[in-house]
């Protein structure tokens, strides 16, 4: 069943969506079937593309809107929200 989900998230790790954080985000996003986007103001990025995510240039304190559409949309948004708000727990 298709569904949609959105959530506002705050980038709170010191270096922002830097190279490694973006890499981790994209890897996690790619595991979901849903189409996932990150919006910053008028700019929209494909969460499965590292170039796209990097070009959001989201530093610490940036607010982004996470949106997903597809069968696992809710789970995707939940997982990615946790990852982002946890400051990319896997990237020390």
């Amino acid at each position, binding site marked *: 069943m298709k569904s949609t989900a959105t959530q506002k998230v705050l980038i709170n790790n010191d270096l922002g969506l830097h190279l490694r954080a973006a890499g981790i985000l994209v890897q996690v996003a790619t595991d979901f079937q849903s189409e996932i986007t990150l919006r910053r103001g008028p700019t929209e990025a494909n969460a499965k593309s590292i170039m796209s995510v990097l*070009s959001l*240039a989201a530093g610490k*304190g940036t607010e982004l809107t996470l949106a997903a559409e597809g069968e696992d949309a809710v789970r995707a948004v939940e997982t990615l929200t946790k990852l982002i708000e946890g400051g990319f727990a896997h990237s020390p």
Partner: protein
Amino acid sequence: MNESRPQVFRGVGASPGVAIGRVFLLDRGEVRVPRYHLAPEEATKEVARLRAAIDASVAQLDAIRARCMGDGLEHQNILEAHTMMVQDRSMREEIEGLIQNENLNAEWAVNRVIGRIRGLFDQLTDAYLKERRGDIDFTGERIIRNLVGQHADISDMAALGDDAIVVARDLSPVDTALLTRHTVLAFVTEMGGKTSHTSIIARSLEVPAVVGAKGIFDAAGSQDVIVVDGLDGTVMLRPSRTQLERGRRRAQNYQRSTLELLQAKGLPARTKDDRYVQVAGNIELPSEVPSVLGRGGEAIGLYRTEYMFLGRRDVPTEQEHYETYRQVFEHMGARSVTVRTLDLGGDKLMGPLHFDTEANPALGLRAIRYCLEHRTIFEAQIAGLLRAGLHGNLRIMLPMISGMEEFLAAKEVIADVQNRLTEAGVPHRQNIPVGMMIEVPSAALCAKALAVEADFFSIGTNDLMQYLLAIDRTNERVAHLYRPLHPAVLRVLKLIVDAAKEANIDVSICGEMAGDIDFTPILLGLGVSVLSMNMGSIPKIKRLVRELHQSECEALLAAAMECVHVRETEAMVRHFMLKHLLTLGAL
């Protein structure tokens, strides 16, 4: 103009130390970007050519990554991100769109897409993110080099002598990864700042580096003699005899002082007038204990236990707590180990504990407040600690205590757990000292009363200053107001230390101040009994203490306490340090 005359360049010292060697110019040559329009029927073939170049790029990066296995995670992660970038789907689709719709040749299309993405970074103010432009450029460059058939990586590194100093316009993470397979005495680049990959890698390799040395690349000749001073950020090309002599002296001084620091690490931190202060290490993992001991740490002054709670979905069991702490105690033997109980919440990671979102996490349900509301999680940790205490010299430290009630409530939990263990016949340690972190101003103001109940104080200067000065120092707009020598900070520290001395209990400093040489004289002057710090700072703090007089530090503190302006105290301390550092060399 005589090209062989000496030249001096100024950049930013990105990694300390002084090296003298010969220039190894790292030049991948300009990348050619041919531009032409395709005939419409050629587009399909051109897309295939692009894909082949991307495949070749991925293969090269994979091969380099395989070669650098074991070089540390930082490197691996960066190389992995680069691999993801060259095969990025949305970038590829955009390039293919230009090939198919505008009939651009592949090199031109890549160049244009990379240019567009890089343009987005040009307006940024965030220094770290801005430097990611370099990563975008390197990605495009690699694909284009593979399209035109140029070598994408430096192939002649075998020519590196054993006195090579690498001079480059810029180094990609891949370049540094390849270079670290060889002996390189130092790095100099025209581009980059303190957070560039070159700087990070140089510091981790412990070789000097100067970045931002504009103009050096065109001025340097291969095999020229070069002096790189990572301490003050200067680079001397083809130095005169005097310059060379000066470089040698600075290199020797630096080597001698670092060597002396390590050789003398076993000596206690005792001032010239015989006042001893214990120098301890802060750790997060049992595996860090040998490094603390290896640098001359005499105790563990702060064992942060949050790590156990991170990156998992459940909470650690009593047995896990026991086994983890036991490893630390067994390694430390009779030396004191101060374990801080769970201090999650606020800025720290949430892990499995499902904290609700709070508007003001630093002022929210965290640390001891959280533990008192979630007894089972807290009790499991306490029980594990009490049992593991049999194997070493444990002290329990409670974080974020704001007043008497909280401290007594937490002590009661500890007593309850102790009774339960006794009744169940589980072996555990009795009479464990229980102390508290002083990091909330309200606790500092009540220090006198708290000192009667607590077995020791440990001052968490980072949080204490944040709460006291109302400064979030990760907020760039106010970070400059975070001043450890603020008169209010000195007054509060004195209040806490005096209360501890009066009650005859230990008082330690475990915030960043403890490991910063600028504050050592003030902290000694206050009369703290333990300085606990990141392990890297241990040798130099011990050395500095041995150079100081307690009486002079007390006089400095007394004078500083008279100051009304933070600038005055800072100037006073700076003056004191200058006077003493003259005899310390490059500490």
